[in-house]
């Protein structure tokens, strides 16, 4: 432990363009790194803190499922929804979680294509978080409908009415977008994890571990003929996932943008939603990662440099979001559509103004603190601000969904939405589910993508030592392809 502490003090954020960035501090070599990462999974018994956290979050998760049962038994009326506000916390939570689910694939795909080597320390964790967030997200559209038992009619499956879904409906686009995104993210995550699972298999001391990890390791034996195709596949998946990341939240934003509710009907939504998603996603990665690296002593693998870089991305996307807010207002005024104009005046000064100002202060103002290096290199400050960002981004979805609906065209049909305890417990429960999954992941799966980290470790700078140039011979090796 003591040695760990000395390592942690290393600040690798100082930027020296003459040297390649030192991504892994503390003098780790392949062996010690493997020991470190696998050690977390292999140690007997989890720390008490882990059990406490698991108990708490799983209780919350159970509460959510109880609430869902209650909802299905009685009807959507147990929520605070009404006419005109047909979508409330259900859709707010959906968009919120889908947004969270953006960081993972962004880090693994886009940063991979951009050759951002620092991603290797955090991509495994971020991808896991993506999967879990998308799971939480998928629950809400599923249960928000009036008749849950026929929600499968949204899929193009034959049913007794011989009718097909309406492909003009953005909700249907959602089904495909979120479905595809979840699938691809899962493939990506799993593919990346196979070599590490093999590592755990090969280090396994108990039979159960050997079988369990062995089964999922698919018999990976580090063969370079495999690595060859594996890396190609990884590159392709990254290439596919990149437009996907951008498309998911664009499609989610279509739910609003293609309808004609004042405050929804704007073309800025796709980029604005994507920026917001990345913003909230990174914030959530930080929120989970900062405590994790503390508790599991990963400070020299997930270094200050990593945190700082993520902080910079949050600062950038946060500023984009702020810009989007400003643009919305400008266009509402400039576009001269009175209904639009009122929708935005109503946001800022109407009965829900408090929600709007919470959103602005959390999303636009708080990340600006990251201009100060002191703040963006202080884990505590980062954690606090990231939590604020998460709050703000939930309120952004609340502002867009609820405020716009509560007052649209006919004043006689204006309404006011209040959530019920069922709404609140269901939302709290989704966090329970999320953290339950995160905790199980940290306990049983390699939190750090070892195989990838090893490619960016100091000893990797070995090319110089190659004694002689490797000729360009191409043997005919059957089975290579």
């Amino acid at each position, binding site marked *: 432990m003591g040695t760990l502490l000395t390592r942690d003090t290393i600040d690798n954020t100082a930027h020296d363009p003459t040297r390649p960035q030192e991504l892994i501090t503390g003098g780790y070599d392949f062996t010690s790194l493997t020991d470190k990462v696998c050690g977390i999974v292999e140690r007997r018994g989890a720390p008490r803190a882990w059990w406490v956290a698991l108990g708490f979050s799983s209780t919350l998760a159970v509460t959510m499922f109880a609430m869902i049962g209650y909802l299905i038994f009685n009807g959507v*009326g147990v929520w605070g929804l009404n006419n005109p506000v047909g979508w409330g916390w259900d859709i707010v939570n959906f968009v919120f979680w889908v947004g969270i689910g953006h960081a993972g694939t962004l880090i693994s795909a886009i940063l991979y294509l951009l050759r951002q080597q620092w991603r290797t320390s955090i991509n495994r964790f971020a991808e896991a978080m993506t999967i879990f967030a998308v799971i939480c997200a998928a629950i809400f559209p599923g249960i*928000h409908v009036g008749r849950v038992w026929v929600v499968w*009619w949204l899929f193009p499956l034959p049913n007794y009415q011989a*009718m097909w879904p309406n492909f003009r409906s953005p909700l249907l686009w959602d089904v495909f977008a979120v479905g595809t995104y979840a699938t691809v993210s899962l493939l990506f995550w799993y593919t990346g994890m196979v070599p590490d699972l093999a590592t755990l298999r090969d280090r396994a001391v108990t039979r159960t571990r050997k079988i369990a990890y062995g089964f999922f390791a698919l018999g990976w034996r580090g063969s370079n003929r495999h690595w060859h195709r594996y890396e190609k596949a990884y590159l392709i998946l990254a290439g596919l996932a990149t437009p996907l990341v951008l498309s998911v939240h664009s499609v989610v934003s279509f739910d609003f943008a293609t*309808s004609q509710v004042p405050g929804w009907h704007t073309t800025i939504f796709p980029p604005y939603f994507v920026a917001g998603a990345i913003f909230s996603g990174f914030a959530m990665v930080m929120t989970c990662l900062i405590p994790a690296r503390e508790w599991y002593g990963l400070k020299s693998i997930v270094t200050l440099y990593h945190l700082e870089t993520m902080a910079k991305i949050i600062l950038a996307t946060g500023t984009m979001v702020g810009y989007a807010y400003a643009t919305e207002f400008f266009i509402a005024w400039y576009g001269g559509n009175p209904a639009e104009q009122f929708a935005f*005046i109503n946001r800022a000064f109407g009965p829900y103004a408090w929600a709007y100002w919470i959103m602005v202060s959390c999303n636009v103002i708080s990340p600006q603190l990251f201009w100060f290096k002191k703040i963006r290199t202080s884990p505590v400050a980062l954690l606090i601000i990231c939590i604020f960002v998460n709050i703000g981004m939930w309120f952004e979805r609340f502002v867009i969904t609820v405020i716009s609906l509560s007052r649209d065209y*006919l004043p006689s049909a204006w*309404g006011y939405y*209040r959530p019920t305890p069922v709404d609140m417990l269901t939302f709290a429960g989704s966090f329970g589910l999320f953290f339950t999954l995160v905790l199980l992941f940290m306990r049983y799966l390699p939190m750090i993508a070892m195989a990838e980290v090893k490619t960016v470790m100091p000893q990797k700078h070995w090319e110089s030592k190659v004694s002689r140039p490797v000729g360009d011979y191409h043997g005919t090796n059957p089975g290579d392809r």
Partner: protein
Amino acid sequence: MSSMNQNGLDHNYWRSLQELSDEPEFRRFLEGEFPEPAEVPTDAMSRRRFLQVMGASVAMASLVGCRWPQETIVPFASRPEGVTPGTARRYATVMELAGAVSPLLVTSFDGRPIKVEGNPDHPLSQGACDLFAQAGLLELYDPDRSRHVLEREGGRPRRRSLGDGEAAAAAAFTALRARRGAGLAVLSEASSSPTFAALRGRLRDELPEAAWYEYEPVSRDNERLATGLAFGEARRVRVDPGAARVLACFDADLLLDHPTALRNARGFANGRRAEDGEMNRLYVVESDLSLTGGMADHRVAMPSLEIPRALYGLAAELVLGRGLSLPPGYESVLPALEHVRAAGHAPAWMGAMAGDLLAHRGESLVAVGPRQPDHVHVLAILLNEVLGNTGRTVTYGPDDQRGLSHGAAIATLAVTMGKGQVQSLVILGGNPVHDAPADLDFGGLLDRVAESWHLSLFVDETSQHCRWHLPRAHWLESWHDVRDHDGRYAVAQPLIAPLYDGWTPAELLSLLLDGVRRPAHDLVRATADREPGAGDWEALLHRGFAAALPVEKAAALDGRGVVAAVRRGGMAKPAEVGRENLELVFVRDPSLHDGRFANNAWLQELPDFMTKLVWDNAALFGVSTAAALDVAHGDVVELQLGERRLEAAVYVLPGHAPWSVSLSLGHGRTAAGGVGNGTGFRAYALRNSSALDAAAGLKVVRTGRSHRLATTQDHHAIDAVGMREREKRSRSLVVSGTLAEYREHPDFAAHRTHHPPLVSLWKERPREGFAWGMTIDLSTCIGCNACVVACQAENNIPVVGKDQVAKGRELHWLRLDRYFQGDPDAPAVAHQPVACVHCELAPCEQVCPVNATMHNEDGLNVMAYNRCVGTRYCSNNCPYKVRRFNWFNFNSDIPDVRKLVYNPEVTLRSRGVMEKCTYCVQRIETVKIDAKNEGRPVRDGEVVTACQQTCPTQAIVFGDLNDPQSRVTKLTTGDRAYHLLAELNVKPRTAFLARLRNPNPELAESADGHPAH
């Protein structure tokens, strides 16, 4: 509020006072995070009170199915013999409410009545129908109706079979007959039935010792007394607003609260269509904001007790100011008029009104409402006489009603009961324990009567104080006959045999007189045979009423009576209502009448046409009065009248008279049934026999508590931001202008709703076949709610209960948006019925993921309920917010008997699906099928939607927009037509016709009651 007055000239509508007011705790409410979360029903069904008891009521499976009356009843449309199952047939009948008659046509399906409409051939209804007759259907199938004879022994009710009950009654009646009726008193409701009158006559002759009393808590007795004074005998005042060019109403709600309200409304509306020529002008002087007041071109709000002064002032202005000459013999009223003129000044409107009346002699009408004392009615009779209106816009027909006024009758009965002179009391209907004047303590007196029988539909407050309760037959189960306001004879035939073998009052009377209960059919038949002009029995039933009007002897004005009354009134010391002397006005409840309909869920959930209140009544205060008394919307105040006290919730209503408080009668029932128990506040607790209509000396004490009032508009808070926006926006939503503007620019509506050219992104397909469309004329829509009930009955729309409405989950497919405009103390009112407008480019359709809503071949925007998944996306995307969602299963726990009301042509919607107006697609299909069978095209006007069918003013027109000759096409392309939110390019098929007002140029006011610039 000042802001209101500034932009007063604009057609700025705002919807109620929460918006205008900005008081602090209101702001706090707005700013609090999620104030007071919506209540979660642990068991949604049982939470809705009206279902609790309905659910608890005994299963009545045996009742489902056909119950054909034994006597032959004759269908309206098809031949009597040969009943084809599964086909709807329509029968003519009538409903009588407190002596007023609604001629009806009832649709019966396999022996169960499922829809009540007006009899199109009858001049009084002309097809239109009021709320009570339509909702009578639900009353018929009310599971709370009494099913047994009850005998009270030691205060505890015991069930008796009908046979035992009848035997017991027969025995007691025999004894009474032996005593020649000594110690017997009969308390009856008012009735115009000749059969009933005959029986009553027999009672007078055969049981001379017996006493007969009639009591209606809400009646037009003042008018009857006045005609007694003016003509020497009681007369029915028949008005014809259709023939009047200028109407001056003093506390008179001609369009709603009148025996011929439906015909009045039709006539009034015909005089409002500027296209068809001139437009009439309506002046209203009243205390509360009545339906008629909402339609007024000029409305003056003043306390009810000061209105007599106003009419005398008008008379003085006409006679003294404008030299209207009185006929010889009437000069002696002059001192009275001079006295009035000396006492009070003449406001501007009075001069203008007088001028208008003089300019339209013979085609004007001065009407006085039932709450005004007799001498005011007499003065009106005199004014109409001297203005030459008598015989033109107003006539006086004979009145069968005899004897004491209802107030006097109940008081006299109470006195005799108090003296212990009543041993036997037979109560035929009515509920005096609930609605008799509070000072009489009728319940207490009733307990002391040895033998008391109460014949009634429910085991109500009165039944609980009577020895015997006898189940009464509902009017849809009864043979009955009536004489309508015009004196026309009509017969009511039952649509279904009595569900619980109840009796009619006539049957009970025959038991009393003859010792045997003769069937109502025979009694009525006997009368009909005697009735001159009734004609052939079957023809009579077929038609529903007698063709010939009885010969009446003309009414001759009795000068001395008139002069005496007018002098009495004129010389009387005028009431001084003010801050120190508030008045309380007892108003007939527009939904519950006198409270007898309290258990009717349709009527309870029917939004009041002005307040939009449901499941409640409230003490109505004017804006400035509320401010002065420092009471706010929803506060609970204690109303103190003499030693009487009542706690009631405050509703601040724009346009309500200053220093006056209105409270509607009928709520606060304790034994109404599962639906009606405990709603609202019992106004009768404050009503003394000395002041049945309006009482001075009211004290209002704040309790500091508040009461949740559920309204279908503003069931949410409106802040200043929203209020300003509404003012800006409403201009183009409810387009209204003055007759002058219209004459100048007939297309002013188009300018008000100006929008950029509309372009679609794709090529629209041409309309083929039918293109059903609708127009709604805001000039003639009086906002009477008849269409809302018709829609509810036709389309099986469930009732959701107060909690759900308060959350904003009412299910009415058709809602009446009500907008106030301008000065809160003298606002203009506009009603705008809004249902699905069936857009050509319906925004709801494209967002539905499962094709549950789409266009059918007629271009209707239809819902496939069993396809709907319930994403509510369509509702979010509907700019009119006319889609309704089934948040719970609102059709579960319905007792079988209650299910008899369902229209078999319309699907019941389950939990979790969206629903909305269908343009009554089932009616469209019926007509198309008929036309096809007869191999002919569908005729224009052949398809009639439920709302259109029942509209008293024919404000709604429906038809085929592809037919260039159809009325709807002509109106849609006409001057005043405009489309709501046309700028969205959704191409709605429902068009509105701009509202026109006809203000008096003399009064420096625009149509909206604002100073002109």
